[in-house]
């Protein structure tokens, strides 16, 4: 009765979405060796900024707001998709400035500071946007359903999975094929070298953290039409992101992408045959892999191991 193929396809899309969720988290852990527990809150923040951009927020009663709202949804959505993550990235930069005080101390302090920041951001969201459920409007072209092999799939979800592939590719190109990427990677492993070459390490870290936070915000804008938007939406994000990093291995870009796809497949396929176990399957997968491979699938040695 239950055909396997559609579920594998579904699991793959799900995996790509998980990869997008973990992308910013991976970048910050890999390069800066900071576990950013505010990742989920920045994810939410990005989506809330997008919401305000699409709906004009407190400007909605002004002439500008009325004009803006009279435009079709597509240009407003595209602008939100660009600006939402940028604002989240800026918020991330502010967080990095606070984080500076923890550098050179126990790595745990960074994790704790971001835990506190997560609480603060969530409460600020509650004050700024209210506690209720919100809805992010989508352009008609990426909304609705599509028939594949006689089964209905969500057009938006396919768009999100495709977008996630693009984002993964862009980050990879940035890290591997541009001079900035080379410096960032060098900064991760040899800060003295970067300094000796005349680069400002402080600025580099600000940039990387901003980028990671921006990617969190981007994941938020993309995921929220599927998950819904509420102030505590971020709590759904941190744990999968965490799991994916541990599974893929800290510091490995492709490790975390592979791990995300594996998690997606395991959730998707258990969801088809033993749905009551679909959430549990992620944890069992992690324990199986990390129980036998110390550093996950492709992990490298990291300062976070001490």
């Amino acid at each position: 009765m239950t055909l396997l193929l559609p579920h594998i396809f579904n699991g793959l899309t799900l995996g790509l979405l998980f990869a997008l969720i973990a992308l910013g988290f991976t970048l910050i852990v890999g390069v800066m060796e900071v576990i950013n527990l505010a990742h989920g809150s920045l994810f939410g923040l990005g989506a809330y900024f997008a919401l305000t951009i699409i709906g004009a927020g407190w400007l909605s009663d002004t002439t500008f707001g009325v004009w803006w709202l009279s435009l079709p949804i597509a240009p407003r959505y595209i602008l939100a998709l660009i600006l939402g993550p940028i604002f989240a990235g800026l918020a991330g930069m502010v967080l990095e400035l606070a984080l500076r005080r923890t550098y050179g101390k126990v790595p745990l302090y960074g994790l704790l500071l971001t835990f506190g920041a997560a609480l603060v951001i969530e409460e600020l969201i509650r004050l700024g946007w209210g506690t209720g459920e919100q809805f992010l409007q989508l352009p008609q072209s990426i909304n609705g359903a599509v028939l594949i092999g006689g089964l209905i799939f969500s057009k938006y979800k396919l768009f999100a999975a495709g977008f996630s592939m693009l984002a993964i590719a862009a980050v990879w190109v940035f890290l591997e094929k541009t001079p900035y990427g080379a410096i960032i990677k060098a900064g991760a492993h040899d800060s003295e070298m970067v300094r000796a070459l005349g680069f400002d390490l402080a600025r580099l870290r600000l940039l990387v953290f901003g980028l990671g936070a921006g990617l969190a915000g981007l994941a938020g804008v993309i995921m929220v039409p599927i998950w819904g938007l509420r102030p505590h939406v971020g709590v759904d994000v941190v744990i999968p992101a965490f799991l994916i990093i541990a599974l893929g291995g800290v510091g490995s870009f492709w490790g975390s992408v592979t791990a995300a796809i594996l998690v997606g497949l395991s959730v998707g396929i258990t969801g088809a045959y033993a749905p009551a176990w679909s959430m549990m399957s992620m944890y069992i997968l992690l324990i199986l892999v990390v129980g036998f491979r110390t550093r996950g699938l492709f992990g490298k040695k990291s300062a976070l191991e001490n």
Partner: protein
Amino acid sequence: MVTLSDISRRSGQWITPQIAVFALVLLSLPFWIGPIGLYQYIGVEIAIWIIFALGFNLLFGYTGLHSFGHGAYLGVGAYAFGLFQLHVGVSLFGGLLAAILAAGVAGAVVASFVSHRRGIYFALMTIAFGQLFWFGAVKMHWITGGEDGLLNIPRPDLNLGVTSFDLSGNTALYYLIATLVIVITILTWRAVNSPFGRILQAIRQNEVRASFIGYEVWWFKWVVFTLSAMFAGLAGGLFSMAQESAYPDVMSLHQSGLIVMMVLVGGGLVNFWGPILGVVLYFIARDVLGAITETWLLWYGLMFVAMVMFKPEGLAGFLAELKRPSEPETWTKPAEEQ
């Protein structure tokens, strides 16, 4: 900066002046908690969490193993206590023993997976196991009552053979728990100042070096993990006695994060008394802020961020510096050196 290893040792002593003062404060609490604007139940809760925190800091502060899933063992203890009362027999010592053993077994199983792990992988594995326990508790609702929890757990009397005490009042229950806290404080104090405690600290400072000296590092990690799970189990058993129910929420990642937060804010990384200070500060801050404002989490979060930024050694570190203001910051272990 001070660290735990700088604390002057009095290994010959079972009871130091600090312990005596602490015991006095604990035992006199029912007389002054009302007048300062609090209530007996919060005293019960603080005392329970002190037991949890002291055990947790053996692992966290002394051995440097950062577990983020410790709420699970508190939960296992709570359920074990409740199930014992409901299905085996109403008995205080039976229930507490069941709680300690159940949490100990759960801890030992998890410890055999994680004691070969370090740093972030250790932390991640503890999170994964914590989530498994939480899911298990919600899923096995025919045993645990699911998200509604295990309800109407009887509070057994304290039966000492010759005489028996009714613990149904919160003050009576408090005295039982306070007595346990004092015993446990003395035992932990002895443990951390024993050779065993010094090995734990050696593992924290440098695991590789400790193993070169010839210690079976993973074995010590296994023991201390199991031990701290047993502390958590005892605390959990007492918690289900206080609430007369056991709920799965204490096993969630959020609650496991709270104990880390408390221990760190108090200064568990630098001082034996840190976890205790942290628990007291957390409960009182939450209670007072929570009654004043609905956005108490914002203020608590900001307070916490400021603490990590400006005084990461916590309250105990702050107090220690007041005593020794001229000490230079010598301890550095920057992550970027690797």
